[in-house]
Protein backbone atom coordinates (compact mmCIF):
# COMPACT_ATOMS: atom_id res chain seq x y z
CA UNK A 1 0.00 0.00 0.00
CA UNK A 2 1.09 3.51 -0.75
CA UNK A 3 1.75 5.58 2.34
CA UNK A 4 2.42 9.30 2.49
CA UNK A 5 5.92 10.17 3.57
CA UNK A 6 4.97 13.77 4.20
CA UNK A 7 2.20 16.33 3.91
CA UNK A 8 2.75 19.92 2.97
CA UNK A 9 0.61 22.93 2.41
CA UNK A 10 1.26 24.91 -0.76
CA UNK A 11 -0.26 28.29 -0.04
CA UNK A 12 -3.78 28.37 1.23
CA UNK A 13 -5.58 25.86 -0.93
CA UNK A 14 -3.25 23.15 -2.10
CA UNK A 15 -2.25 20.01 -0.24
CA UNK A 16 0.93 18.31 -1.34
CA UNK A 17 1.35 14.64 -0.53
CA UNK A 18 4.75 13.07 -1.02
CA UNK A 19 4.42 9.29 -1.19
CA UNK A 20 6.74 6.58 0.03
CA UNK A 21 7.83 5.92 -3.55
CA UNK A 22 8.84 9.54 -3.94
CA UNK A 23 5.91 10.63 -6.09
CA UNK A 24 4.15 13.86 -5.35
CA UNK A 25 0.47 14.56 -5.62
CA UNK A 26 -1.07 17.97 -5.34
CA UNK A 27 -4.67 18.41 -4.40
CA UNK A 28 -6.76 21.48 -4.67
CA UNK A 29 -8.50 21.39 -1.30
CA UNK A 30 -11.96 22.13 -2.66
CA UNK A 31 -11.59 19.42 -5.27
CA UNK A 32 -10.59 17.10 -2.44
CA UNK A 33 -13.69 18.09 -0.50
CA UNK A 34 -15.83 17.39 -3.56
CA UNK A 35 -14.19 13.98 -3.90
CA UNK A 36 -15.13 13.02 -0.35
CA UNK A 37 -15.80 9.28 -0.37
CA UNK A 38 -17.99 9.16 2.73
CA UNK A 39 -21.49 7.74 2.85
CA UNK A 40 -23.12 11.15 3.08
CA UNK A 41 -21.38 12.33 -0.07
CA UNK A 42 -21.65 9.14 -2.12
CA UNK A 43 -24.60 6.76 -2.27
CA UNK A 44 -23.33 3.61 -0.65
CA UNK A 45 -25.33 1.29 -2.87
CA UNK A 46 -25.14 2.88 -6.26
CA UNK A 47 -21.82 4.65 -5.87
CA UNK A 48 -23.49 7.78 -7.24
CA UNK A 49 -22.10 11.02 -5.90
CA UNK A 50 -24.81 12.78 -3.95
CA UNK A 51 -22.73 15.78 -2.98
CA UNK A 52 -23.24 18.63 -5.46
CA UNK A 53 -20.47 21.17 -6.05
CA UNK A 54 -22.96 23.96 -5.36
CA UNK A 55 -23.30 22.68 -1.80
CA UNK A 56 -19.64 23.30 -1.05
CA UNK A 57 -18.47 26.87 -0.50
CA UNK A 58 -15.80 28.12 -2.90
CA UNK A 59 -13.56 28.99 0.01
CA UNK A 60 -13.85 25.65 1.83
CA UNK A 61 -10.65 24.72 3.67
CA UNK A 62 -9.50 21.82 5.75
CA UNK A 63 -9.69 22.60 9.44
CA UNK A 64 -7.79 19.50 10.50
CA UNK A 65 -5.95 16.68 8.84
CA UNK A 66 -5.54 13.51 10.87
CA UNK A 67 -4.41 9.95 10.43
CA UNK A 68 -6.99 7.18 10.58
CA UNK A 69 -5.32 4.01 11.72
CA UNK A 70 -2.53 3.35 9.29
CA UNK A 71 -4.46 3.39 6.08
CA UNK A 72 -6.17 6.70 5.58
CA UNK A 73 -6.24 10.46 5.85
CA UNK A 74 -9.17 12.00 7.68
CA UNK A 75 -10.16 15.59 6.99
CA UNK A 76 -12.40 17.91 8.98
CA UNK A 77 -13.60 20.75 6.77
CA UNK A 78 -14.56 24.34 7.37
CA UNK A 79 -18.09 23.56 6.15
CA UNK A 80 -18.50 21.32 9.20
CA UNK A 81 -18.11 18.03 7.32
CA UNK A 82 -15.78 15.63 9.12
CA UNK A 83 -16.76 12.10 8.16
CA UNK A 84 -14.57 11.83 5.09
CA UNK A 85 -11.84 9.24 5.34
CA UNK A 86 -9.55 9.16 2.32
CA UNK A 87 -7.90 5.74 2.15
CA UNK A 88 -4.33 6.20 0.95
CA UNK A 89 -5.05 4.06 -2.11
CA UNK A 90 -8.06 6.21 -2.93
CA UNK A 91 -6.10 9.38 -2.38
CA UNK A 92 -3.41 8.18 -4.69
CA UNK A 93 -5.92 7.14 -7.35
CA UNK A 94 -7.56 10.55 -7.17
CA UNK A 95 -4.49 11.98 -8.71
CA UNK A 96 -3.51 9.70 -11.60
CA UNK A 97 -1.92 12.56 -13.49
CA UNK A 98 0.85 12.43 -10.97
CA UNK A 99 1.83 8.83 -11.38
CA UNK A 100 4.07 9.58 -14.34
CA UNK A 101 7.82 9.30 -14.07
CA UNK A 102 8.29 13.05 -14.46
CA UNK A 103 6.83 13.57 -11.02
CA UNK A 104 9.30 11.31 -9.29
CA UNK A 105 11.06 13.28 -6.68
CA UNK A 106 14.19 14.89 -8.03
CA UNK A 107 15.05 17.83 -5.83
CA UNK A 108 16.56 20.12 -8.41
CA UNK A 109 14.98 23.34 -7.29
CA UNK A 110 14.02 24.57 -3.84
CA UNK A 111 10.41 24.63 -5.03
CA UNK A 112 8.67 21.30 -5.46
CA UNK A 113 7.96 20.49 -9.08
CA UNK A 114 4.56 21.80 -10.05
CA UNK A 115 2.21 19.22 -11.30
CA UNK A 116 -1.31 19.15 -12.53
CA UNK A 117 -4.00 19.84 -10.07
CA UNK A 118 -6.62 17.35 -9.21
Amino acid at each position, binding site marked *: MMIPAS*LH*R*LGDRTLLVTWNDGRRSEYDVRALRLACPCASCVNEWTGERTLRPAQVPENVRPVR*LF*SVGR*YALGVAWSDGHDTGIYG*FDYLRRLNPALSGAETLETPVSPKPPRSEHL
Partner: protein
Amino acid sequence: MPAVTTELVLEALRHVQDPDLHRDIVSLGFVKNLNIDGGAVRFDVELTTPACPVKEDLKRQCEHMVSALPGVTAVDVTMTAQPARGNMEKRTALLKDVRHIVAVASGKGGVGKSTATANLAIALANTGAKVGVLDADIYGPSMSLMFGIIKAPEINAEKKLVPVTSRSLKVVSMAMFDEGEKGVVWRGPMVSQMIQNFVHNVVWGELDYLLIDMPPGTGDVQLTLTQNAPLSGAVIITTPQDVSVLDAKKGLRMFQSVNVPVLGIVENMSYFVCDECTKKHYIFRRGGGRRIAESLGVPFLGEVPLEPEVAEGGDSGTPIVERRPGSPAALAYKALAGSVASSLSILSAGQAGLLGSFDLKWEEVPEP
Protein backbone atom coordinates in the same frame (compact mmCIF):
# COMPACT_ATOMS: atom_id res chain seq x y z
CA MET B 1 -32.41 40.75 53.48
CA PRO B 2 -31.50 37.11 52.75
CA ALA B 3 -28.04 36.42 51.33
CA VAL B 4 -27.91 35.47 47.67
CA THR B 5 -26.17 32.09 47.35
CA THR B 6 -24.86 30.06 44.44
CA GLU B 7 -27.39 27.34 45.24
CA LEU B 8 -30.32 29.74 45.06
CA VAL B 9 -29.18 31.19 41.76
CA LEU B 10 -28.64 27.75 40.23
CA GLU B 11 -31.99 26.60 41.55
CA ALA B 12 -33.65 29.54 39.80
CA LEU B 13 -31.78 28.84 36.57
CA ARG B 14 -32.98 25.26 36.58
CA HIS B 15 -36.26 26.63 35.35
CA VAL B 16 -34.65 27.81 32.14
CA GLN B 17 -34.76 25.14 29.47
CA ASP B 18 -32.85 24.80 26.25
CA PRO B 19 -35.66 24.36 23.72
CA ASP B 20 -33.64 22.05 21.49
CA LEU B 21 -32.11 19.81 24.08
CA HIS B 22 -35.20 19.78 26.33
CA ARG B 23 -33.15 20.06 29.47
CA ASP B 24 -32.46 22.87 31.86
CA ILE B 25 -29.32 24.92 31.32
CA VAL B 26 -27.88 24.05 34.73
CA SER B 27 -27.86 20.29 34.26
CA LEU B 28 -26.56 20.84 30.74
CA GLY B 29 -23.59 22.60 32.29
CA PHE B 30 -24.17 25.82 30.37
CA VAL B 31 -23.88 28.11 33.38
CA LYS B 32 -20.30 29.23 33.88
CA ASN B 33 -18.31 31.72 35.93
CA LEU B 34 -21.06 32.46 38.42
CA ASN B 35 -20.06 35.38 40.57
CA ILE B 36 -22.11 36.85 43.40
CA ASP B 37 -21.15 40.15 44.92
CA GLY B 38 -23.78 41.16 47.50
CA GLY B 39 -26.92 41.60 45.41
CA ALA B 40 -25.08 41.67 42.09
CA VAL B 41 -25.14 38.37 40.21
CA ARG B 42 -22.96 37.78 37.17
CA PHE B 43 -22.64 34.64 35.10
CA ASP B 44 -22.02 33.32 31.59
CA VAL B 45 -24.31 31.04 29.67
CA GLU B 46 -22.25 28.98 27.28
CA LEU B 47 -24.26 27.64 24.36
CA THR B 48 -23.15 24.96 21.96
CA THR B 49 -23.42 27.24 18.98
CA PRO B 50 -22.96 30.98 18.60
CA ALA B 51 -25.81 30.92 16.10
CA CYS B 52 -28.37 29.76 18.64
CA PRO B 53 -31.69 31.12 17.40
CA VAL B 54 -33.13 31.47 20.88
CA LYS B 55 -30.11 33.15 22.41
CA GLU B 56 -31.87 36.42 23.28
CA ASP B 57 -34.87 34.59 24.59
CA LEU B 58 -32.73 32.42 26.87
CA LYS B 59 -30.88 35.46 28.11
CA ARG B 60 -34.16 37.21 29.03
CA GLN B 61 -35.40 34.11 30.83
CA CYS B 62 -32.18 33.89 32.85
CA GLU B 63 -32.37 37.53 33.83
CA HIS B 64 -36.00 37.16 34.73
CA MET B 65 -35.54 34.07 36.93
CA VAL B 66 -32.53 35.40 38.81
CA SER B 67 -33.77 38.95 39.32
CA ALA B 68 -36.91 37.48 40.90
CA LEU B 69 -34.81 36.08 43.76
CA PRO B 70 -35.02 38.04 46.99
CA GLY B 71 -31.89 40.10 47.59
CA VAL B 72 -30.81 40.29 43.96
CA THR B 73 -30.23 43.89 42.86
CA ALA B 74 -28.52 43.40 39.50
CA VAL B 75 -28.16 40.58 36.98
CA ASP B 76 -25.48 40.51 34.32
CA VAL B 77 -25.72 37.61 31.86
CA THR B 78 -23.12 37.09 29.17
CA MET B 79 -24.03 34.72 26.37
CA THR B 80 -21.06 32.81 24.97
CA ALA B 81 -20.64 29.78 22.77
CA GLN B 82 -18.31 26.84 22.71
CA PRO B 83 -18.97 24.81 19.59
CA ALA B 84 -19.44 21.12 20.34
CA ARG B 85 -16.28 19.37 19.42
CA GLY B 86 -16.43 16.97 16.52
CA ASN B 87 -16.18 13.41 17.71
CA MET B 88 -12.95 13.02 15.84
CA GLU B 89 -11.33 15.97 17.52
CA LYS B 90 -7.96 15.25 19.08
CA ARG B 91 -8.85 11.72 19.77
CA THR B 92 -5.36 10.43 19.31
CA ALA B 93 -3.99 12.79 21.93
CA LEU B 94 -4.14 10.27 24.76
CA LEU B 95 -2.22 7.73 22.72
CA LYS B 96 0.64 10.00 21.82
CA ASP B 97 2.97 8.60 24.47
CA VAL B 98 2.28 5.02 23.46
CA ARG B 99 5.10 3.83 21.25
CA HIS B 100 3.64 0.63 19.86
CA ILE B 101 0.09 -0.64 19.79
CA VAL B 102 -0.13 -4.33 19.05
CA ALA B 103 -3.31 -6.24 18.39
CA VAL B 104 -3.41 -9.86 19.50
CA ALA B 105 -5.98 -11.51 17.30
CA SER B 106 -7.34 -14.84 16.24
CA GLY B 107 -9.62 -15.96 13.49
CA LYS B 108 -11.76 -17.95 15.91
CA GLY B 109 -12.28 -18.35 19.62
CA GLY B 110 -10.72 -20.92 21.87
CA VAL B 111 -7.18 -20.74 20.60
CA GLY B 112 -5.77 -19.18 23.77
CA LYS B 113 -5.54 -15.61 22.55
CA SER B 114 -6.23 -14.01 25.94
CA THR B 115 -3.77 -16.31 27.67
CA ALA B 116 -1.19 -15.40 25.10
CA THR B 117 -1.90 -11.68 25.56
CA ALA B 118 -1.50 -11.91 29.33
CA ASN B 119 1.73 -13.86 29.12
CA LEU B 120 3.14 -11.75 26.35
CA ALA B 121 2.40 -8.63 28.43
CA ILE B 122 4.24 -9.99 31.45
CA ALA B 123 7.13 -11.25 29.36
CA LEU B 124 7.50 -7.81 27.74
CA ALA B 125 7.23 -6.07 31.12
CA ASN B 126 9.91 -8.38 32.50
CA THR B 127 12.32 -6.95 29.95
CA GLY B 128 11.83 -3.55 31.61
CA ALA B 129 9.29 -2.20 29.13
CA LYS B 130 6.22 -0.23 30.16
CA VAL B 131 3.25 -2.28 29.08
CA GLY B 132 -0.48 -1.72 28.94
CA VAL B 133 -3.22 -4.22 28.15
CA LEU B 134 -6.57 -3.32 26.67
CA ASP B 135 -8.98 -6.19 26.88
CA ALA B 136 -11.21 -5.47 23.91
CA ASP B 137 -12.66 -8.95 23.85
CA ILE B 138 -15.89 -7.28 24.61
CA TYR B 139 -18.10 -10.35 24.57
CA GLY B 140 -15.84 -12.49 26.72
CA PRO B 141 -13.46 -10.25 28.62
CA SER B 142 -11.01 -12.22 30.69
CA MET B 143 -8.06 -10.01 31.54
CA SER B 144 -9.26 -9.27 35.05
CA LEU B 145 -9.32 -12.98 35.75
CA MET B 146 -5.98 -13.60 34.07
CA PHE B 147 -4.25 -10.95 36.15
CA GLY B 148 -6.34 -11.46 39.28
CA ILE B 149 -7.65 -7.89 39.24
CA ILE B 150 -10.73 -7.08 41.25
CA LYS B 151 -10.64 -3.30 41.11
CA ALA B 152 -12.51 -1.11 38.65
CA PRO B 153 -10.72 1.69 36.85
CA GLU B 154 -11.24 5.20 38.15
CA ILE B 155 -12.56 8.13 36.20
CA ASN B 156 -10.41 11.22 36.56
CA ALA B 157 -11.44 14.89 36.66
CA GLU B 158 -11.28 15.13 32.85
CA LYS B 159 -13.73 12.22 32.67
CA LYS B 160 -11.05 9.93 31.29
CA LEU B 161 -10.57 6.37 32.37
CA VAL B 162 -7.51 5.61 34.47
CA PRO B 163 -6.27 2.03 33.93
CA VAL B 164 -5.88 -0.34 36.87
CA THR B 165 -2.25 -1.07 37.65
CA SER B 166 -1.39 -4.69 38.31
CA ARG B 167 2.29 -5.65 38.71
CA SER B 168 3.75 -3.00 36.46
CA LEU B 169 1.00 -3.39 33.88
CA LYS B 170 -1.76 -0.92 33.14
CA VAL B 171 -4.93 -2.83 32.41
CA VAL B 172 -8.38 -1.89 31.18
CA SER B 173 -10.90 -4.62 30.62
CA MET B 174 -14.54 -4.70 29.74
CA ALA B 175 -14.84 -7.19 32.58
CA MET B 176 -14.24 -4.32 34.97
CA PHE B 177 -17.62 -2.92 34.01
CA ASP B 178 -19.43 -6.19 33.90
CA GLU B 179 -21.51 -7.24 36.85
CA GLY B 180 -20.38 -10.70 37.70
CA GLU B 181 -21.52 -13.31 35.24
CA LYS B 182 -24.22 -11.43 33.44
CA GLY B 183 -22.10 -11.15 30.35
CA VAL B 184 -22.31 -8.43 27.79
CA VAL B 185 -25.37 -8.34 25.63
CA TRP B 186 -24.92 -5.37 23.38
CA ARG B 187 -25.73 -4.41 19.89
CA GLY B 188 -23.00 -3.74 17.38
CA PRO B 189 -23.02 0.05 17.28
CA MET B 190 -22.81 0.25 21.07
CA VAL B 191 -19.89 -2.10 21.08
CA SER B 192 -18.04 -0.11 18.45
CA GLN B 193 -18.65 3.04 20.46
CA MET B 194 -17.38 1.39 23.61
CA ILE B 195 -14.28 0.17 21.87
CA GLN B 196 -13.57 3.65 20.56
CA ASN B 197 -13.91 4.92 24.09
CA PHE B 198 -11.49 2.32 25.35
CA VAL B 199 -8.90 3.28 22.85
CA HIS B 200 -9.31 7.01 22.88
CA ASN B 201 -10.55 7.91 26.36
CA VAL B 202 -8.12 6.02 28.54
CA VAL B 203 -5.18 7.82 30.11
CA TRP B 204 -2.53 5.30 29.15
CA GLY B 205 0.37 7.62 29.87
CA GLU B 206 3.78 6.62 28.65
CA LEU B 207 3.90 3.06 27.35
CA ASP B 208 6.32 1.10 25.23
CA TYR B 209 3.70 -1.44 24.28
CA LEU B 210 -0.05 -1.44 24.42
CA LEU B 211 -1.42 -4.90 23.73
CA ILE B 212 -5.01 -5.17 22.59
CA ASP B 213 -6.71 -8.47 23.21
CA MET B 214 -9.08 -8.51 20.26
CA PRO B 215 -12.40 -10.29 20.15
CA PRO B 216 -12.04 -13.48 18.11
CA GLY B 217 -13.02 -13.36 14.48
CA THR B 218 -13.20 -10.69 11.84
CA GLY B 219 -16.49 -8.91 12.53
CA ASP B 220 -17.53 -5.34 12.93
CA VAL B 221 -15.82 -4.71 16.25
CA GLN B 222 -12.55 -6.10 15.07
CA LEU B 223 -12.68 -4.00 11.96
CA THR B 224 -13.54 -0.86 13.92
CA LEU B 225 -10.57 -1.38 16.16
CA THR B 226 -8.25 -2.25 13.36
CA GLN B 227 -9.29 0.78 11.37
CA ASN B 228 -9.24 3.32 14.13
CA ALA B 229 -6.46 2.49 16.51
CA PRO B 230 -3.08 3.47 15.14
CA LEU B 231 -1.87 -0.14 15.32
CA SER B 232 1.83 -0.79 14.88
CA GLY B 233 1.22 -4.41 14.15
CA ALA B 234 -0.78 -7.52 14.85
CA VAL B 235 0.06 -10.94 16.18
CA ILE B 236 -2.25 -13.71 15.09
CA ILE B 237 -2.74 -16.72 17.35
CA THR B 238 -3.82 -20.01 15.88
CA THR B 239 -3.88 -23.66 16.81
CA PRO B 240 -2.43 -26.28 14.48
CA GLN B 241 -5.64 -27.64 12.92
CA ASP B 242 -6.56 -26.57 9.43
CA VAL B 243 -9.88 -25.05 10.50
CA SER B 244 -8.13 -22.69 12.88
CA VAL B 245 -5.50 -21.96 10.28
CA LEU B 246 -8.20 -21.09 7.76
CA ASP B 247 -9.68 -18.57 10.16
CA ALA B 248 -6.28 -17.12 10.92
CA LYS B 249 -5.98 -16.34 7.21
CA LYS B 250 -9.12 -14.22 7.39
CA GLY B 251 -7.67 -12.27 10.28
CA LEU B 252 -4.53 -11.71 8.34
CA ARG B 253 -6.42 -10.37 5.36
CA MET B 254 -8.37 -8.00 7.59
CA PHE B 255 -5.20 -6.44 8.94
CA GLN B 256 -3.63 -6.25 5.53
CA SER B 257 -6.70 -4.51 4.12
CA VAL B 258 -6.15 -1.57 6.46
CA ASN B 259 -2.40 -1.60 6.20
CA VAL B 260 -1.61 -2.99 9.64
CA PRO B 261 1.54 -5.09 9.41
CA VAL B 262 1.14 -8.64 10.66
CA LEU B 263 4.14 -9.25 12.88
CA GLY B 264 3.61 -12.96 12.63
CA ILE B 265 1.69 -16.04 13.51
CA VAL B 266 1.95 -17.90 16.78
CA GLU B 267 0.87 -21.50 17.02
CA ASN B 268 -0.66 -22.22 20.39
CA MET B 269 -1.34 -25.69 21.83
CA SER B 270 1.26 -26.99 19.43
CA TYR B 271 2.19 -30.10 21.34
CA PHE B 272 1.77 -31.78 24.69
CA VAL B 273 4.53 -33.21 26.81
CA CYS B 274 3.17 -35.71 29.34
CA ASP B 275 4.51 -36.30 32.81
CA GLU B 276 6.04 -39.64 32.11
CA CYS B 277 8.12 -39.05 29.01
CA THR B 278 9.75 -36.12 27.28
CA LYS B 279 8.21 -36.88 23.91
CA LYS B 280 6.28 -34.05 22.24
CA HIS B 281 2.79 -35.25 21.38
CA TYR B 282 1.29 -33.29 18.49
CA ILE B 283 -2.35 -33.65 19.43
CA PHE B 284 -3.87 -31.28 16.89
CA ARG B 285 -1.59 -32.28 13.99
CA ARG B 286 1.67 -30.60 13.39
CA GLY B 287 2.94 -27.47 11.74
CA GLY B 288 -0.28 -25.70 10.69
CA GLY B 289 0.93 -22.35 11.98
CA ARG B 290 4.21 -22.59 10.16
CA ARG B 291 2.51 -23.66 6.94
CA ILE B 292 0.10 -20.76 6.93
CA ALA B 293 2.86 -18.29 7.79
CA GLU B 294 4.89 -19.58 4.90
CA SER B 295 2.00 -19.64 2.46
CA LEU B 296 1.03 -16.06 3.33
CA GLY B 297 4.53 -14.73 3.56
CA VAL B 298 4.46 -13.59 7.18
CA PRO B 299 6.89 -14.59 9.91
CA PHE B 300 6.22 -17.64 12.05
CA LEU B 301 6.80 -16.48 15.60
CA GLY B 302 6.91 -19.82 17.33
CA GLU B 303 4.99 -22.64 18.98
CA VAL B 304 3.60 -22.61 22.49
CA PRO B 305 3.12 -26.05 24.01
CA LEU B 306 -0.09 -27.21 25.63
CA GLU B 307 0.50 -27.40 29.36
CA PRO B 308 -2.21 -27.78 31.98
CA GLU B 309 -0.40 -25.20 34.08
CA VAL B 310 -0.93 -22.55 31.42
CA ALA B 311 -4.66 -22.78 31.95
CA GLU B 312 -4.30 -23.01 35.72
CA GLY B 313 -2.11 -19.92 35.69
CA GLY B 314 -4.73 -18.01 33.76
CA ASP B 315 -7.55 -19.11 36.01
CA SER B 316 -5.70 -18.26 39.19
CA GLY B 317 -4.53 -14.80 38.17
CA THR B 318 -0.85 -15.65 37.79
CA PRO B 319 0.02 -16.28 34.15
CA ILE B 320 2.52 -19.06 33.51
CA VAL B 321 5.39 -16.69 32.70
CA GLU B 322 5.12 -15.51 36.29
CA ARG B 323 4.06 -18.78 37.90
CA ARG B 324 6.60 -21.15 36.32
CA PRO B 325 9.14 -18.98 34.48
CA GLY B 326 11.25 -21.98 33.50
CA SER B 327 8.44 -24.06 31.97
CA PRO B 328 8.44 -24.71 28.22
CA ALA B 329 5.34 -22.56 27.71
CA ALA B 330 6.84 -19.66 29.68
CA LEU B 331 10.04 -19.90 27.68
CA ALA B 332 8.01 -19.90 24.49
CA TYR B 333 6.22 -16.72 25.55
CA LYS B 334 9.49 -15.05 26.45
CA ALA B 335 10.86 -15.90 23.02
CA LEU B 336 7.65 -14.54 21.51
CA ALA B 337 8.06 -11.28 23.43
CA GLY B 338 11.59 -10.99 22.04
CA SER B 339 10.41 -11.55 18.46
CA VAL B 340 7.55 -9.09 18.81
CA ALA B 341 9.83 -6.42 20.27
CA SER B 342 12.45 -6.85 17.60
CA SER B 343 10.04 -6.92 14.68
CA LEU B 344 8.42 -3.74 15.99
CA SER B 345 11.81 -2.03 16.13
CA ILE B 346 12.62 -3.16 12.62
CA LEU B 347 9.25 -1.98 11.35
CA SER B 348 9.52 1.42 12.98
CA ALA B 349 13.04 1.88 11.66
CA GLY B 350 11.72 1.10 8.18
CA GLN B 351 8.98 3.67 8.61
CA ALA B 352 11.26 6.37 9.96
CA GLY B 353 10.71 8.60 6.94
CA LEU B 354 6.99 8.01 6.77
CA LEU B 355 4.14 9.84 8.24
CA GLY B 356 3.07 8.22 11.49
CA SER B 357 0.04 9.11 13.51
CA PHE B 358 -0.80 12.77 13.05
CA ASP B 359 -3.45 15.32 13.83
CA LEU B 360 -2.75 18.75 12.42
CA LYS B 361 -4.65 21.96 11.97
CA TRP B 362 -4.53 23.18 8.40
CA GLU B 363 -2.39 26.15 9.45
CA GLU B 364 0.02 23.78 11.17
CA VAL B 365 0.69 21.76 8.03
CA PRO B 366 4.20 22.89 7.09
CA GLU B 367 4.98 24.64 3.84
CA PRO B 368 7.79 22.94 1.94
